[in-house]
C-alpha cells in the first residue's frame, strides 16, 4: 500500500522540485556545459522589471484576498446565521453553482461584459452616463474584479463552517450585557471565526498568486503577472534556468504566506486543509 503513494509523491512532486532547484542554481556557460551559479537569482534582484512584477503580483494578491474576505463575509453570515433550513441551503447552492463552471467560461463572460464593444459600455451609453463606449478591460481594477470573482467560493466555504459553529447564545449574552454590533463582531465573532478566516485567506491568496488565466485575459498586456513571466521564460524563451528560479521565488512567497498565516492564527497545516 505504501508503494503507490511513494511513487506518486516521489516521481511527480518531490523529484520534479529537486530538478527545478538544480536548474535554478546553474548557468549555461557553453553548449551542453553548465556551472553552478546564483546568476538566475541575481538577475531577478538586479533587473527592476522582474522585481516589480513580483512585488506587484504579491500586492495585488493581498488586495484581492482582503476584498474577497470583505465581500464574502456578509454572505457567509447570511447563510450561517440569518437564514435557516431550506433558504440557507438554497442560497449556498446558488453561490456554489458558478464554480462548477470552468474559469475559462467565467472569464469569457467578463470579457463580453466589459470590453469596449461589450454589454456594460453599451448600457452606460444608452443610459447617458458616457457619450462613447468606455474600455473596461485591461485595467488593474478589472483584474481585481476577475480575481475576486474566481476566489469567492474558497472564502465562503471555510467562513460558513466556522460561523455555523458559533453558538448564538454567546451573541445574545453579549447583546444583553449591552454590547453594540461592532463590539460583538470584534470581540466574539471574529475571534471565533479566526480559523475559518485564516483558512480562506490562505487558499485565496495562493490561488490568486498562482493564477494565470484571469490576469492575462482581463489585463491583456498590462497584466504583468508573475506566472506570465515564468511561462515566458520556460515556454517562449526556453530559458529553463531562469524560469526555474522564478518558479522557486513564487513558490517561496506562496509558502511563506501560508506559514505566516498559520502562525498568526496558531493553527496546523493539516487542520486548515481539511477545513476547505
Amino acid at each position: 500500500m505504501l508503494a503507490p503513494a511513494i511513487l506518486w509523491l516521489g516521481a511527480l512532486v518531490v523529484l520534479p522540485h529537486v530538478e527545478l532547484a538544480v536548474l535554478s542554481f546553474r548557468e549555461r556557460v557553453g553548449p551542453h556545459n553548465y556551472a553552478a551559479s546564483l546568476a538566475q537569482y541575481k538577475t531577478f534582484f538586479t533587473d527592476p522589471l522582474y522585481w516589480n512584477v513580483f512585488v506587484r503580483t504579491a500586492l495585488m494578491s493581498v488586495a484581492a484576498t482582503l476584498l474577497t474576505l470583505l465581500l464574502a463575509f456578509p454572505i457567509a453570515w447570511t447563510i450561517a446565521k440569518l437564514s435557516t433550513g431550506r433558504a440557507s441551503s438554497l442560497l449556498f447552492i446558488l453561490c456554489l453553482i458558478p464554480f462548477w463552471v470552468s474559469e475559462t467560461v467565467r472569464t469569457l463572460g467578463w470579457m463580453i461584459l466589459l470590453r469596449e464593444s461589450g454589454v456594460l459600455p453599451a448600457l452606460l451609453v444608452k443610459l447617458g452616463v458616457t457619450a462613447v463606449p468606455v474600455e473596461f478591460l485591461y485595467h488593474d481594477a478589472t483584474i481585481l474584479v476577475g480575481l475576486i470573482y474566481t476566489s469567492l467560493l474558497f472564502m465562503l466555504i471555510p467562513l460558513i463552517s466556522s460561523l455555523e459553529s458559533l453558538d448564538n447564545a454567546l451573541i445574545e449574552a453579549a447583546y444583553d450585557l449591552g454590547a453594540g454590533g461592532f463590539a460583538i463582531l470584534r470581540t466574539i465573532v471574529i475571534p471565533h471565526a479566526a480559523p475559518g478566516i485564516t483558512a480562506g485567506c490562505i487558499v485565496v491568496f495562493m490561488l490568486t498568486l498562482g493564477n494565470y488565466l484571469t490576469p492575462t485575459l482581463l489585463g491583456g498586456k498590462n497584466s504583468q503577472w508573475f506566472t506570465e513571466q515564468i511561462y515566458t521564460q520556460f515556454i517562449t524563451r526556453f530559458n529553463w534556468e531562469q524560469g526555474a528560479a522564478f518558479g522557486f521565488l513564487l513558490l517561496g512567497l506562496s509558502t511563506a504566506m501560508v506559514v505566516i498565516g498559520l502562525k498568526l492564527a496558531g493553527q496546523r497545516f493539516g487542520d486548515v486543509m481539511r477545513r476547505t
Partner: protein
Amino acid sequence: MIPTLPHPAWLRAATAVYVVAFLAFLFLPLVVVAVFAFNDAPYPAPPWRGFTLDWFLGNSSKGRTGLIADSELMGSILTSGGVALWVTLLSVLLGTANAFLLERGRFPGKQALSVLMLAPLVIPGVILGISILAFASRIAEFADDTLGWELDFLRPGLPLVVLGQFSFIATIATLTISARLRRFDRTLEEAAFNLGASQAAVFRTIVLPYLRPALLGSAAISFLMSFEDFNTTLMLVGADSPLTVMMYGRMREGASPVLNAVSLFLMAASALLALTFMRRRPQAH
C-alpha cells in the same frame, strides 16, 4: 445580527439588497455567455439581432462555422474528455490505496507522509507544471544519451498533461475517500470475518459498497477538475490542445460566438454532473 435579536428594518433591507446584488454579480457573466451564444451576429456583443442556432449548427454555408462543424473545437472536447478519464481512473485508484494506507496502515513517518500528500494543493499549478516538465525532460534525455531510447511520452503532450493533473487531483481523491473510510464501522468487517468470510469477500461485499458514494463523488470531482484545469495543462501541452487551452488561444485572438456555444455546452455538462452528484449526496450520510 441574528434573528433572535432586535433587527432594525434598514439593516434587514440592506442585507436583502446585498444578497441580491451578490447573486447578480455571480450569475451575470454566465448569463451573458449563454445569451450571446444565440445572437444572430458575428460577434458576441450587443445589440441583440435576433435568435439563431448558427453558432451551434452552422456548417459554414453562411460563413458561420458552428460548434458541430468546428472540428478543432470538437476535437479538443474529445481530447479533454480522454485526458479527464485517465486522470479520474488514476486518481480514484490511488486515492483508494492512500485512504487505506492513512486510515489502516501503521508505519514510521505516517504523519510526515500525510502532510506531504497535501503539498500538491499548495503548490501553484504553474509550478507543478514546469517542475514535471523539467523532470520528464531530464529522464527523456538521460534515456536518450545512455540507452538510446526515444521516450516520446515524456515530451510535452497528452501523457504529461495526464500526469501533471493527476499529481494534484490525486490529493483531492485521497482526502474525499479517506474521510469516508474514517467513519466506517469496523465491527461490520469483524462480524463478517467471524462468520467466515474471506478478505476478498469482505472487501467486495462490505467495504466497497460502503465507499461507493465517496468513490463516485471523487470520480466526479476528478473528472471536472481535470476537464477544467488550465494552469498545469498549459505548461505541459504539446500538439493536441485540450479544450481550456484551445479556448484560451481563441479568446486571445478575438471573439466568436462559437466560444459561447461551447461554453454553454460546458455549463450544461457540469450542471448535469453536479445534479447527479448532489442527488447521490444525501445517501452518503
